[in-house]
């Protein structure tokens, strides 16, 4: 339906909009801004790791308290305020209505409220940095008693404000999630059956359901933790009848599914890109959907592998070892489907495709190193070492950074009506890709050799301060600085392309899904006339057709 809109004020159009595309931009730009903060924090504490006691440019001397606050907030920001808003909220908001042929989300005002609460949560997080004692130093996993007792974390007020920020963030995503699931179930274009839904929409919806089903216990846990901090309850205090392990269960019951909550959208983005740039039908559509559902279900059964050294019953550790190894099967199957899709395709190595391939490469390393940690015997040695740290950065970095760059470079022409510069895009890709691997491969080694995650300064551990170990830490830090430097290329490319980029036509990548059938950028309401769907999303290189693509909305 064509809707005529009177010109709106800037505030109304961009700040108070109920349009899903504008809300996507709000989430995306907020997420990008916080990524800069999180990246800066990592630079500061990595400098301390490589050059202990150094006066870090841009920060100064890193005290032990600073160090704890920096690692806590680096982790929390990157997961809750970067990966979640960019991968789920931004791409979910942009892609769900456009890919299923709807004019907007089914609850536009709830959608706007969702972002506003999210923004509030980010503001509250910033407030926590400036209260008495500084930002929370309880680590992003918030284990008691470190998180629950001022005398351990030294950041009593900051820790409570931090919990409030996390709770608000969950509220924002629950509101957004209700919208996502309901929209995908009820607002699809005529003719779009479940098996015609693009994979990325499936992935975001499954991820949303997993989030909604797993976050509840942590919401309850956060309230209990806040009461322990502020009201003197003893839910997690063993001296007064509480149990600190309970927190670990509540946290990881959410925390492990959360990994898959952010993983699935990134795999969905990858699926869209590799089909377009290898001009092939997705190798096994239903297999991908089924593996995603299986991953989602299994993700609820693996949480205690984070607690192998926490004193849980060894028999329980056995069970969780088995479930953890089982979950690698559907994920590996998904990766095999993607590789099979590439096989025999006519591959174009455009920037989005490089990111998608980079995702598969790095995520596989992350997945394979997870096998060692999922096995409880090996984990007892490797637990809380830099091996663990390198492992989960090899999963989260491909997901949150590589996946997000893949999506941004792929949909940029649709979002902003202009192309990004390909040369700068490739420079940015290779700089980030090599930089990332150069940071974390040395950290796998230092981890195996004994570097513990929570140590602020290794000077007092002679066996850990050999020239080789020091050298690897310094190499990792310098690689980090180089990689962060390459992000300036992206920022330059992004900002200049917004204004001066080559104009993009409707369907620059010759793709099939519905978002490419409307203008770039799409108008308010998305289409003058809502589309009808006639086939699945991946009909590329169909024999006997002149074009090698076959958009979903073209009648046979």
């Amino acid at each position: 339906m064509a809707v005529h809109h009177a010109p709106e004020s800037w505030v109304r159009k961009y700040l108070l909009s109920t349009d899903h595309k504008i809300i996507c931009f709000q989430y995306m730009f907020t997420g990008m801004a916080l990524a800069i903060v999180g990246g800066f924090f990592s630079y500061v504490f990595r400098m301390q790791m490589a050059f202990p006691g150094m006066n870090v440019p841009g920060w100064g001397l890193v005290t032990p308290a600073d160090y704890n606050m920096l690692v806590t907030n680096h982790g929390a920001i990157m997961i809750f305020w970067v990966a979640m808003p960019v991968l789920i909220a931004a791409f979910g908001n942009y892609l769900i209505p456009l890919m299923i042929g709807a004019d907007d989300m089914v609850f536009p005002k709830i959608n706007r409220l969702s972002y506003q609460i999210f923004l509030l949560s980010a503001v509250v997080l910033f407030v926590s940095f400036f209260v008495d004692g500084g930002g929370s130093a309880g680590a992003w996993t918030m284990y008691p008693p470190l998180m629950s007792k001022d005398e351990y974390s030294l950041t009593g007020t900051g820790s409570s404000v931090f919990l409030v920020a996390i709770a608000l963030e969950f509220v924002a995503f629950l509101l957004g999630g209700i919208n996502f699931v309901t929209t995908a179930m009820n607002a699809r274009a005529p003719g779009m059956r479940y098996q015609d839904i693009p994979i990325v929409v499936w992935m975001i919806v499954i991820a949303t359901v997993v989030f909604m089903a797993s976050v509840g216990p942590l919401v309850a846990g956060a309230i209990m933790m806040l009461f322990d901090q502020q009201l003197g309850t003893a839910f997690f205090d063993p001296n007064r009848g509480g149990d600190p392990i309970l927190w670990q269960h509540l946290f990881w019951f959410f925390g492990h599914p959360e990994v898959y909550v952010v993983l699935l959208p990134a795999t969905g983005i990858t699926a869209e890109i590799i089909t377009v740039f290898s001009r092939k039908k997705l190798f096994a559509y239903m297999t991908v959907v089924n593996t995603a559902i299986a991953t989602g279900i299994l993700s609820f059964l693996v949480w205690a592998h984070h607690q192998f050294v926490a004193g849980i019953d060894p028999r329980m550790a056995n069970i969780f070892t088995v479930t953890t190894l089982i979950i690698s099967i559907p994920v590996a199957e998904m990766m095999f489907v993607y590789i099979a899709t590439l096989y025999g395709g006519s591959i174009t190595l455009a920037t989005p495709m490089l990111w998608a391939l980079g995702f598969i490469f790095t995520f596989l390393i992350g997945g394979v190193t997870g096998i060692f940690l999922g096995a409880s015997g090996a984990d007892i040695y490797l637990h809380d070492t830099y091996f663990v740290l390198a492992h989960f950065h090899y999963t989260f970095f491909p997901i949150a950074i590589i996946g997000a760059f893949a999506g941004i470079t792929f949909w940029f022409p649709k979002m902003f009506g202009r192309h990004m510069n390909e040369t700068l895009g490739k420079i940015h890709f290779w700089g980030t890709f090599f930089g990332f691997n150069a940071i974390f491969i040395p950290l796998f080694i230092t981890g195996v050799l004994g570097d513990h995650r929570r140590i602020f300064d290794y000077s007092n551990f002679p066996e850990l301060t050999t020239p080789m170990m020091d050298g690897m830490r310094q190499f990792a830090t310098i690689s980090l600085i180089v990689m962060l430097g390459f992000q300036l290329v992206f920022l330059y490319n992004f900002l200049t392309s917004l204004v001066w980029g080559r104009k993009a036509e409707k369907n620059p990548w010759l793709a099939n899904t519905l978002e490419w059938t409307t203008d770039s950028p799409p108008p308010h309401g998305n289409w003058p006339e809502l589309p009808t769907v006639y086939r699945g999303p991946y009909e590329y290189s169909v024999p006997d057709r002149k074009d090698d693509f076959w958009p979903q909305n073209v009648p046979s």
Partner: protein
Amino acid sequence: MPTGRLAVWWIIASEIVIFGGLLASYVMYRLAHDAFAEQAAHTNTWIGAFNTFVLLTSSLSAVLAHQAADAGDGPKAARLLQYTMGGGLIFITVKAFEWTSEIQHGFTIASNTFWSFYYTAAGIHAAHVIAGVVIMGFVANTARRNLELQRVELIGLYWHFVDIVWIFLFPLLYIAK
């Protein structure tokens, strides 16, 4: 399924895991510590039973309001919703007196783990009752003018959920001594 009803079911699904996590934690502690029973003996089963009765009865008028809304009678639905709101307010008032008396007897949220769970679980539930009453006020206000009558069913769904949570809380906190 109509979009609004679908959304309410998803809200309820995400609420179930919030209360589920809290109650599962409570049950684990309860099984591990016999001392919980001694503490639970200090709760007043009769007051809890009265509140259970009030809350369940208030759901009846929510159902009748849904029926009236389906028949297109907005003013009647609004009136019935007000009965439900009245039930919610009685529930909260009784609870306020109950808590006051318990706190005066020295059972505060920080006394021990049983009382921490008691106030936390019942408190989160009471917050849901208050939110339900407020939202119901808005719904009744539009329904009176025969507008947005589908909302009567939606707030009813939520209200029944709040009821069901209490049906779990009442035996766990009051009866199991």
